[in-house]
């Protein structure tokens, strides 16, 4: 579904990524792992249109989407979450998810300002859908809390619920388990499996090895900007290059 072809990214004097290529199959959970600074988030940023690659291409369902801006990708069914959670802090939890439904609604400025009937109907619909996504993520009881006041773990779930509201075909999660305790991580794992079971392709950048090995059917290892290895969790665990990269020689 997503094909990354020979992506290279150079920032000034630093080569963040060098000729990275791999594919993400539809309907699966693919993990992208690697030591810190390996270039994983940079890769995500390139795929999701925040950076342009220095060279290389990204294909989504056969279409070349290299350099497409994020808002265009959202309408094509690609959405992501951020390492540092980018919530709309001043808005409520419910409103955050309602923004996720932006592409699923169409009331323009005039209709909104005049509160035309079509707009009112749509508002009701948006609210209902948003609540059901909060229920999907298990945080419906927090609907009217200000997002900035959420505990960290709930904030992560909100970000995912909000992304799901876009009704994407593929969701890219950037270190979703960072900062979560083991119970929260278990809840996260369940949620991600639920997402995959609903037919959505998932790509996860992660450091939490247990989580990765548990939920991913395929793993790509990036180290120092290069793709080091690719395979099933089993294969990766036994791959010598990977072991060396993580643990050092000897």
């Amino acid at each position: 579904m997503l094909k990354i072809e020979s992506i290279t990214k150079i920032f000034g004097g630093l080569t963040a990524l060098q000729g990275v290529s791999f594919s993400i199959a539809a309907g699966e959970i693919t993990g992208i792992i690697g030591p810190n600074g390996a270039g994983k988030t940079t890769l995500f940023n390139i795929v999701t249109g925040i950076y342009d690659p220095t060279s290389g291409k990204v294909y989504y369902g056969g279409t070349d989407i290299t350099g497409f801006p994020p808002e265009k990708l959202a309408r094509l069914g690609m959405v992501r979450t951020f390492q540092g959670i980018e919530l709309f802090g001043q808005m409520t939890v419910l409103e955050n998810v309602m923004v996720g439904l932006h592409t699923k609604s169409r009331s323009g400025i005039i209709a909104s300002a005049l509160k035309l009937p079509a707009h009112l109907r749509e508002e009701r619909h948006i609210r209902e859908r948003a609540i059901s996504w909060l229920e999907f993520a298990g945080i419906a009881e927090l609907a009217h809390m200000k997002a900035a006041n959420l505990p960290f773990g709930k904030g992560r779930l909100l970000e995912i619920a909000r992304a799901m509201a876009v009704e994407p075909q593929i969701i890219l999660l950037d270190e979703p388990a960072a900062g979560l305790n083991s119970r929260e991580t278990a809840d996260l794992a369940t949620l991600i499996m639920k997402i995959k079971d609903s037919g959505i392709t998932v790509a996860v950048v992660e450091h939490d090895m247990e989580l990765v090995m548990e939920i991913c059917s395929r793993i790509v290892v990036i180290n120092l900007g290069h793709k080091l290895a690719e395979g099933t969790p089993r294969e990766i665990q036994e791959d010598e290059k990977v072991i060396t990269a993580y643990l050092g020689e000897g």
Partner: protein
Amino acid sequence: MKFLEGSMKQELMKFFVFAVAVFTAPVFFKGGYIVNVLVFVGIYTILAVALNLLLGLAGQISLGQAAFFGLGAYISGVLTATYAVNPWVAMVIAAIAVGIVAFILGFPILKLKGHYLAMATLGMGIIVYIFFNETVDLTGGPSGLPGIPNLAISGIIFDSDIKNYYLVWSFAIVTILLSVNLSASRIGRALRAIHDSEVAARILGVNVRLLKVQIFTISGIFSALAGSLYAHTVQFISPASFGFNVSIELLTMVIIGGLGSIYGSFLGAAILTLLPELFRTFQDYDIVVYGIVLIVMTMFMPGGLVRGIPLLARSLLAKVKSGLPSERRV
């Protein structure tokens, strides 16, 4: 969904009460001098609300709102005083012209963020102000443009304070209603999303660039309408009313009232227009006061009066409650 209807009903109630208060106010003031001041409160309310849409909702700072205000005033003024165009037609032309200017300028200007945006809008405001001063043949230059006619509908000429009050406040009420509606809608949420995290808004499919320009344009059009109204009620305009100081006053009004609070903008406009009238002798202190107010409000009451006063009241109440019984906390 009951909740939706509930909060909407609340908003409508609030608006209804406000509208009734506005329309009955002159009766209470028995049409004195204060009605004249309230006309200006109305005009500045429109301007403050327009800025709030941009600054409070979308988080885009603009220090050049006076430019759109002035353009609306001068286009209306010149068309009606020099070329005898029908004032209503002139007002529509002014609104459309300023809308187009704002839309075109909006694209390059709103690519900028934070300080750079502030400086760019400041520069834009000053360029327009210089233009008003220099094009003497057209605008009359620093000495101003006199002889602007009043507006009129089917025989009623708006030539007295009380008539202008109702004229201006009709526009202000509509502006407030449209803005409140916009704020609590899909568009309003998208704008607030842009304010909180532009990148997250984009990732969710919001066309950030276009939306920013659209709200900038609407803000410009409202400001231009305020300008036209100003021209026809005062019947004389000069560049001094549209300088950098006015943009700062508007900023202060929005800050006092509270970023994002539409009714707060009315409060800010009312306070900053009425107070100087009450303290006539302290005319020269106004700049100092603005400076202090900006700093103090931003530091201690970032939500503006609309949110700050209830908060203050609550915390004072809590302090009183905890001080009453003779309990001591170690």
